[in-house]
């Protein structure tokens, strides 16, 4: 009986693994390494890579700069309505990307909520690179915020209090104590958000379109090439898998979680 159960567990694990790995392997079987490098020289791929890197870099920088202090506030301060605020922050996580695209239109489009103000400033956002940046920020920031809130929330409050009694201003407590101690969680959240941002598709194609060299990011290029040149689509997909694997391995190897184990060692027997 016990052996049968063990077999069921093993078989279920094998099926799950095979199902998840097979498509990934299939891409590399279909694309020889030489062709992969060749496809990267392709105009469409090069433009898409440039657009993706530029928009992701700007969007990710914005998410880190705004999201880190916001995560600190939401993670450390207890106030009425905190639960509601955190739920609102998480809402984009459960929205279909297409809905996110429509929502961005409704907010920043010519006839949108802020349309008149933007028109008055002579700013037009939809179908520009700015639209890509906004779409990426919209879909990736909840991933970062959630991780940042959790990272700051799990800090030992007495460390922050101790820093205050040692004369540190709240800003210095944040920079010298909270930030370094939360670095592990922040790094993990940052990598997850970056991966989500690079893969952004649905919101971008609705809000920014798919103009080669302007708004066509790597995922959009895959979709555009899917019917014209399947090999290029495969090559870009392979590139994604490599980027994803690098991010994951970096997450596992980098000793970001160094500080998490400290609460345990604090009770280590003295010698």
């Amino acid at each position, binding site marked *: 009986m016990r052996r049968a159960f063990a077999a069921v567990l093993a078989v279920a694990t094998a099926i799950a693994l095979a199902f998840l790995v097979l498509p990934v392997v299939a891409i590399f079987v279909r694309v020889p390494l030489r062709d992969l490098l060749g496809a990267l020289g392709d105009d469409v791929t090069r433009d898409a890579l440039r657009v993706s890197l530029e928009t992701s870099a700007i969007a990710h920088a914005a998410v880190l700069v705004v999201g880190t202090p916001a995560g600190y506030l939401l993670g450390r301060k207890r106030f009425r309505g905190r639960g509601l605020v955190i739920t609102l922050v998480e809402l984009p996580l459960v929205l279909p990307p297409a809905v996110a695209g429509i929502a961005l239109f409704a907010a920043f489009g010519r006839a949108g909520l802020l349309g008149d103000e933007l028109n008055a400033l002579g700013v037009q956002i939809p179908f520009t690179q700015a639209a890509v940046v906004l779409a990426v920020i919209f879909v990736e920031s909840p991933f970062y915020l959630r991780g940042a809130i959790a990272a700051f929330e799990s800090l*030992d409050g*007495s*460390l922050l*209090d*101790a*820093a*205050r*009694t*040692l*004369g*540190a*201003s709240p800003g210095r407590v944040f920079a*010298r*104590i909270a930030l*370094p*101690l939360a670095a592990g969680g922040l790094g993990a959240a940052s990598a997850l958000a970056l991966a989500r941002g690079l893969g952004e598709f649905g919101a971008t194609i609705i809000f920014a379109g798919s103009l080669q060299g302007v708004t066509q990011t790597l995922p959009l290029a895959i979709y555009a090439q899917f019917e014209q040149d399947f090999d290029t689509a495969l090559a870009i997909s392979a590139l994604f898998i490599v980027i994803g694997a690098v991010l994951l391995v970096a997450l596992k190897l980098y000793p970001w979680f160094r*500080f998490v184990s*400290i609460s345990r*060692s*604090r*009770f*280590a*027997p*003295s*010698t």
Partner: protein
Amino acid sequence: MVPLRLDFALALRAFDVELELDVGAETFAVVGPSGAGKTSILRAVAGLARPERGAIACGDELWFDADSNVDLRPEQRSVGYVFQEYALFPHLTVEQNVAFGGGRADRLLRRLDIEHLARAKPPELSGGERQRVALARALARSPRVLLLDEPMAALDPHTRGTVRAELHDLLRELSLPTLLVTHDFEDAAALADRVGVLVAGRLRQVGAPGDLLGSPADPFVARLAGANLLTGVAAPAPSGLTAVLLDAGPTIYVADSTSGRTEVVVYPWDVSLARETPDDSALNHLPDQIVSLTPLGNRARVRLRLLTAEITAASLERLQLAPGDHVVASFKATQARLFSSAG
């Protein structure tokens, strides 16, 4: 000018902490069970918790005053705070921890004998070493008030004795107004000039450690100070004594007089043990059985079914006691104290 003057009320979830206390250049220990509001007092003094009313002043400097809306921020108050479990910054070296508040660390590292640990990080240190780092860090800004939250609690029993002696010497040398919070009366008695027993946010009794032991205000204080608490019914007995029929069965004789339901306080160090009923001046001889034995340095704590005795390691050796043994516990009529139960 009183170095540290506290007179405030701070609301906690279940009750208010109300405190009126002047602390001179002395060590004042606040002793009480967990949840009595001890740490909240330290947090209020440090500016980490805001009282509802009252005032906190350090010398001529007003730190908090609800009426005039004065509330100095923690970084503006000159306190050295040793947190429970020390709260050392795990990502900084010992030297960086001590120098965090500004100033140089080397003098304090030398004073506390932790120079050799300057480059170590807190997770690598033993409990005793961490306590010294925490003290060095708290003293680095030359504070006017020292706050110690359970400084001995994170230590194992082996290092406790030495660390306590060192801390005692350091506190005497500093002679700063020091508020020390602990649940352990022995630590308080060993370290403090005065002790206050805090129960549910209020000081039940304040006095020198010896006074609290010698004349506890109530059975609770006596119990906190380590006494045995027996309950029974008292009635007058010949030659001016009081006989107490204990709920547990035996009758004992006490010099205090009262009648009706009473609580009897007997300190463990006033109880002696023997194999047979001894022929001595003690009036009370209670046959009992040993439940457990705990060595405490040169003494041993012997828990019996009815009460606990503290005897010297030499007596323990001589009597060859072991759990399960039948012994006779003896104490004098003058060594028991009566508290009639109200109502």
